[in-house]
């Protein structure tokens, strides 16, 4: 048990250290220019410098606002539509093929169009983030709300449950684990959406900052921005994963996740 725990921490740490060492060694021996690929140490220095810059936090706040707003819109729409279609077959027949077709469009390619429609401000980025995050929530919600077993429904019928009780005590808890799994994917997608939007147009956000760094050939700074973006993404993902463990403590995968942590 104790050696297991030791290796679970030691092995991934060793992998990361080995990766960083090989990277440093390669840059030093092949004499790669810092404009092309800086060493990890240079990136760390740039990252610390970046954190000290007040402007960065403003950019970070913009990106987080866009991603979280887009995510929340996607969650609201995805759950409502998924739930409605799970309940009413006719709605599913009418709209699901259409929604699946929309999903097949590479939405990143539509991003410039959204900028054209919604301008260079926050709105366009929120729309892109929401568009990317919608489908995982929607498709999971559709499956989740349909997965209530007929036998469980029979129990609630025998107990004379009213529709509200049925929803709160049966449909919702049955669907929640799967919906939350979709939200874990969606939160990462919304981050990607916000950054892509900032790449394309606008003068705010970490995506914009990354492009600006590249244009000034501050490659270590560019990497530092990417590190910051990764940390923000990880934080958002962890929050949703925590929410899952907290809201559905009975669920096996949530329990497993806890015991592994």
């Amino acid at each position, binding site marked *: 048990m104790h050696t297991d725990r030791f290796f679970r921490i030691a092995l991934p740490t060793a992998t990361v250290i080995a990766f960083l060492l090989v990277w440093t060694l390669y840059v030093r021996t092949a004499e790669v220019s810092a404009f092309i690929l800086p060493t990890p140490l240079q990136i760390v220095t740039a990252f610390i410098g970046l954190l000290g810059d007040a402007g960065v936090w403003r950019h970070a706040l913009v990106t987080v606002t866009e991603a979280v707003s887009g995510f929340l819109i996607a969650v609201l729409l995805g759950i409502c539509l998924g739930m409605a279609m799970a309940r009413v077959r006719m709605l599913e027949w009418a709209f699901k093929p259409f929604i699946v077709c929309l999903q097949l469009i590479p939405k990143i390619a539509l991003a410039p169009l959204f900028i054209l429609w919604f301008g260079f401000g926050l709105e366009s980025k929120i729309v892109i983030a929401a568009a990317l995050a919608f489908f995982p929530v929607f498709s999971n919600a559709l499956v989740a709300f349909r997965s209530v077993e007929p*036998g469980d429904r029979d129990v609630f*019928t025998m107990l004379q449950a009213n529709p509200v*009780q049925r929803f709160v*005590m049966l449909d919702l808890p049955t669907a929640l684990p799967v919906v939350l799994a979709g939200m874990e994917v969606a939160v990462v997608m919304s981050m990607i959406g916000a950054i892509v939007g900032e790449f394309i147009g606008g003068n705010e956000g970490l995506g914009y900052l990354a492009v600006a760094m590249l244009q000034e050939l501050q490659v270590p700074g560019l990497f530092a921005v990417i590190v910051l973006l990764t940390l923000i993404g990880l934080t958002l993902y962890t929050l949703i994963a925590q929410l899952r463990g907290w809201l559905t403590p*009975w669920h096996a995968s949530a329990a497993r996740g806890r015991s592994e942590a």
Partner: protein
Amino acid sequence: MRMDHEADIRLAGVGKTFGHGENAVRAIGDATLDMQRGDFISLLGPSGCGKTTLLRIIAGLERPSEGEILVRGRAVWDGAKRSTEATRPVSMMFQEARLFPWFTVAENVALPLRLRGVKKAEREARAHALCETVGLKGFEKMRPSALSGGMRQRASLARALITEPQVLLLDEPFGALDAMTRDTLNLELMSVCAQARVTTILVTHSITEAAFLSDRVVVLAARPARITEVVEMPFERPRTLDLQRKPAFQDILVRLRSSLTGGH
């Protein structure tokens, strides 16, 4: 007001057909039966004889194609609508325990009271008392996933009993359990039903179980699905497992078996 000579459960010409036209399958036909308060009857038959369908029709989970079901004088089916009035005193146990993983054992047991708007303190007290009765003391705060199959069915039984039902419908609730657990639970079930004078219908394919528990055994046949015979079980109550070794009991088993195979 219900008059005393009136049957507790009355089936009159109940039938069910699935599908239409050429594809129509007759699941049950012309089932007629009267039960008095406190009667324990079993629906015994091979798989595919429609016994579960018949039980589900009585429970109001399945609509009959024809005929009428009265529970304490009230029609279970009002046209296409399930009557919540008629089915209110009815509890049902299923083949699976059907406990909900988001509730603890005690919360599962208390669920019927919660749905009826009983205050938290009262329903918790009643759930804990009933957990003790069915042998779940100490398991109240656990999740159903931590329980064995037999324990889960005990919790399911407690959930069925907490509303103090007048009618109990059992769809092979102990069918998936090992023989020893099954005997134990059957004995407990029998004593609970006798004590509260619950009118009980049990669906089973076990001849021994049907004979041991019931006042009357309703033998069903498949193709066409119908009631072939209603056999009285002439044994005193309370019954113990010793009864199963007596010659009279063995004779009944032989009689039921021949009735099942149609060769009497």
